[in-house]
């Protein structure tokens, strides 16, 4: 494997950083499944298989000023934007300290104002017009941040995808939309979902560039998002990027995908596991070795363990606190 990252302006340290964040996303996610199967948390929805897309994209943004409207699988994206494993675990356990929602929402419903992570809901694709609105507001206010939003390929069939991207296109707003195409929307495969040859073909409907990239390769995703970000910051408007990868788990902890996916298919996708393939790339390019790999993994695991312990022992919100924050209280904004 040739060294492809230098050309992209990425240092070895950047790559190790990306790798560690991908691994963190995976390990946090794996832990949640364990906790779910142990009956300790009611629900998980995974990033597994999509870490390369998420980290490649997030690293191409400016996590000190850009705004993001992620979707439920974007554990990797929010990690890079500053949400900590502890905070993610607090959310998984639905504890009062969860910064996303104080335990009000299911895990995967991200939101954290201090890190410019817009609050998200369950109905898919509603976040896309929000990202467009933040971009509009930024433009009106003369700010130079861009906004970034993601969704699944199934969700690209919602009306809000069309309406939101057309708005962004007409007003040439600095919005980057990444469709994380994992080829399934719960049980429904790509060809029963999306009539387009590829999701990125939809970009032409909105007068914006569209590309499809290998979502298992963080460097390819990084490159596409970086180019889109540069265009957006230059006032050249929005972009649509489709990153194709695989869903390595069932849709969620409530699903069993063996009912609609063959054993062969499930086996085959293991070979494209981005943690493994990116790790291999790093090793082949002398960025990673077995010792360093172990060191990173140990560090990650320690953080995951601490986060789990902390969150498990943290208190729930009081029952009556369910009554709070319907409207602004006492003159607050």
């Amino acid at each position, binding site marked *: 494997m040739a060294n492809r990252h230098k050309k992209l302006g990425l240092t070895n340290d950047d790559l190790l950083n990306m790798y560690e964040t991908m691994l963190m996303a995976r390990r946090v996610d794996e832990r949640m499944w364990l906790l779910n199967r142990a009956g300790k948390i009611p629900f998980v929805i995974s990033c597994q298989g999509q870490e390369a897309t998420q980290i490649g994209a997030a690293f191409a943004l400016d996590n000190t000023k850009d705004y993001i409207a992620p979707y439920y699988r974007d554990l990797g994206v929010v990690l890079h934007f500053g949400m900590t494993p502890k905070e993610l675990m607090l959310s998984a356990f639905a504890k009062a300290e969860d910064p996303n929602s104080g*335990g009000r929402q299911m895990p995967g419903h991200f939101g954290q104002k201090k890190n410019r992570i817009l609050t998200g809901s369950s109905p898919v694709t509603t976040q896309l017009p929000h990202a467009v609105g933040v971009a509009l507001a930024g433009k009106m206010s003369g700010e130079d941040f861009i906004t970034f939003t993601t969704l699944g390929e199934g969700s690209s*069939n919602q009306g809000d995808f069309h309406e939101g991207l057309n708005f962004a296109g007409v007003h040439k707003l600095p919005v980057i939309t990444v469709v994380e195409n994992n080829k399934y929307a719960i049980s429904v495969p790509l060809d029963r979902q999306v009539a387009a040859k590829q999701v990125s073909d939809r970009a032409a409907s909105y007068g914006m560039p569209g590309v499809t990239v290998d979502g298992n390769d963080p460097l390819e995703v990084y490159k596409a998002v970086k180019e889109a970000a540069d265009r957006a910051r230059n006032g050249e408007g929005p972009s649509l990027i489709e990153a194709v990868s695989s869903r390595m788990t069932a849709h969620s902890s409530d699903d069993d995908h063996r009912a609609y996916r063959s054993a062969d298919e499930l086996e085959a996708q293991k070979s494209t596991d981005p943690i493994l393939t990116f790790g291999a790339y790093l090793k082949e390019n002398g960025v990673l070795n077995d010792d360093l790999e172990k060191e990173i993994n140990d560090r990650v695991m320690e953080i995951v363990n601490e986060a789990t312990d902390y969150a498990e022992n943290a208190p729930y919100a009081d029952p009556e606190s*369910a*009554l709070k924050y319907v409207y602004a209280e006492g003159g607050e904004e």
Partner: protein
Amino acid sequence: MPVMSYINAITLAMKEEMERDEKVFVLGEDVGKKGGVFKATAGLYDQFGENRVIDTPLAESAIAGVGIGAAMYGMKPIAEFQFADFIMPAVNQIISEASRIRYRSNNDWSCPIVFRAPFGGGVHGALYHSQSVEAVFANQPGLKIVIPSTPYDAKGLLKAAVRDPDPVMFFEHKRAYRLIKGEVPEDDYTVEIGKADVKREGEDITVITYGLAVHFALQAAERLAEDGISVHVLDLRTIYPLDKEAIIEAAKKTGKVLLVTEDNKEGSIIGEVAAIIAENCLFDLDAPIQRLAGPDVPAMPYAPTMEKFFMINPDKVEKAMRDLAEF
């Protein structure tokens, strides 16, 4: 009579209707091979094939709109929304289109479609997998809204909905799916849409409710019976348009009325029930019309503490019943 769960009664109703009439078909997200996220359509794909059990793209306005088109043509679509919470993108098709097709065309066209969706809380579903959304639609003449509480009613009402010449929204309490079991006759029967049902005869107080809360009321009524308080329980079953006569009769019977819903209180459909009583039998009342409902917060939270705080349950219903009985 076989005993079956609420969800099995629903599946059976669809199966029988599809066998009876080949115009009946199912469409929705994951209704095919997967048999639906709750398995309400389990087995239908294998029996009827992908042309009559259609996995749609993830787009609720299209599920509704395409279904409406097919219904105008003369088919009998059963459109499943994966969760009632996700009907919202389809509100325009349901309210502006389905409910107005017969009226706006002066009876030239019609729209015999069933919109099914699981609703309700107490399943750790958080804000967007727990909601009661019926009030959004319960002001739209042209629509009928059905919410069964028992397997018997579920099967009979769903069959009636499929055969109805007009659009019917059919909300199924997702916690009732496996929790509630009951006798369901083997023969083909329907339950008339638009008719409430007395689920328990009583003399001292009247509880009017629907959905899972019917069971809470019945459980609480048992407990009150031990103390000699006799509770009359009316199950609305069709919550739009309401069965006014049955409501008035039930209210008059005891003169003390408790209305129960799992929805937020203000603007829920029990407000209309109260209004009907206040308009028609005010002088038969011996107590103010009481309402027990969820608090007025957007939707129920995920954390067990707050979810429990939000949800009504037999204890809360019992307490409200005792307070009323003592009034």
